[in-house]
């Protein structure tokens, strides 16, 4: 009789029914709720029945996870660190603290340059003799700010300086 349960299954059944299989089976035959639970267990087991994927599919997932892994690490590598030298270091050597130090410096330099230029213009109009005092430092400040901005912009445009879009000077 091919429909008969094998010895292992019967043994497991007896163990599961705490060696009172007859009473257990009798209850099962009468109780619709228990049969319902049995059916649900069977349903659950078959709902997540394995389906063998092909190797290309597994490779595709593995490759995507490797990409996700790399993408996760990349922002940490290119985000400026807590100190100015770290922030200016090439990609791969920068600290992981997500503080846009370089943008802040550029902002300060640009703002102070514009502010100084305005002060310089006003001084030139009101007190021509003050120009000789401020002129070299203002020019130096403007030149440094401009050069730093150009340097970073060129590196970012060339792809040497990869930053998240929110920190991009080219956005």
């Amino acid at each position, binding site marked *: 009789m091919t429909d008969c349960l094998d010895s292992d299954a019967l043994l497991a059944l007896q163990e599961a029914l705490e060696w009172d299989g007859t009473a257990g089976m009798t209850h099962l035959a009468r109780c619709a*709720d*228990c049969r319902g639970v049995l059916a649900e267990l069977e349903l659950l087991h078959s709902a997540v029945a394995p389906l*063998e994927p092909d190797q290309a599919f*597994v490779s595709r997932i593995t490759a995507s*996870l490797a990409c996700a892994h790399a993408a996760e690490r990349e922002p940490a590598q290119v985000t400026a660190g807590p100190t100015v030298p770290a922030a200016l270091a090439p990609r791969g050597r920068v600290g992981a603290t997500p503080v846009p130090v370089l943008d802040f410096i550029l902002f300060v330099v640009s703002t102070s340059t514009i502010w100084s230029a305005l002060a310089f213009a006003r001084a030139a109009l009101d007190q021509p003799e003050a120009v000789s005092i401020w002129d070299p430092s203002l020019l130096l400040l403007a030149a440094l700010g401009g050069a730093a901005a150009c340097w970073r912009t060129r590196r970012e445009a060339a792809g040497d300086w990869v930053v998240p879009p929110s920190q991009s000077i080219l956005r």
Partner: protein
Amino acid sequence: MTDDEVSRFHAGDERLFGQLVSEHSPRLLGAALRLTRDRAAADDLVHDAWVRAYEARRSFAGHGSVLGWLVAVLRTVHLATVRTEARHVRRAVAYAGLARRDVDVDETADALVEGLDADDRHARVIHALAQLGDRQRDVVTLRVLEGLGTAATADRLGIAEGTVKATLAQALNRLRTLMNGTAGACDR
């Protein structure tokens, strides 16, 4: 998972994830096929679920069932995909001048999924499994899907055997409630 494996899992260890992909993808693919009814869509769903699982790996507690957690992630990604598709449809309808502004896309998509899955008991049981609490889902997954005994499950989850039995009974009741809207009454 051992403590070391949990640390590696949270750190996103590529080798460990490679092993997990090989180990659990067949069952995830089976579940995805039940949900999507299309092999190509199932492949995409499992792929996206793995990427999402990788991104959200730190939300996995560590000592439960990875498979159970992955099934929950799979369902979340499935619902998100359906919602996105529903938005595309609504946008297309809007372009055609037929849009109804008072339609909630998420609710409509969920209702659509439930409606589609209502006739498919396999899809319904997957949704129900994913909606169980972590402890109940862990016990059901380990006992029913991964075939662990009560003692092994208790050992794996760090709980008493009696707790495993009680949790399994509660989980099956909850599954039935989620699937049918009724609780099982029999307690032999």
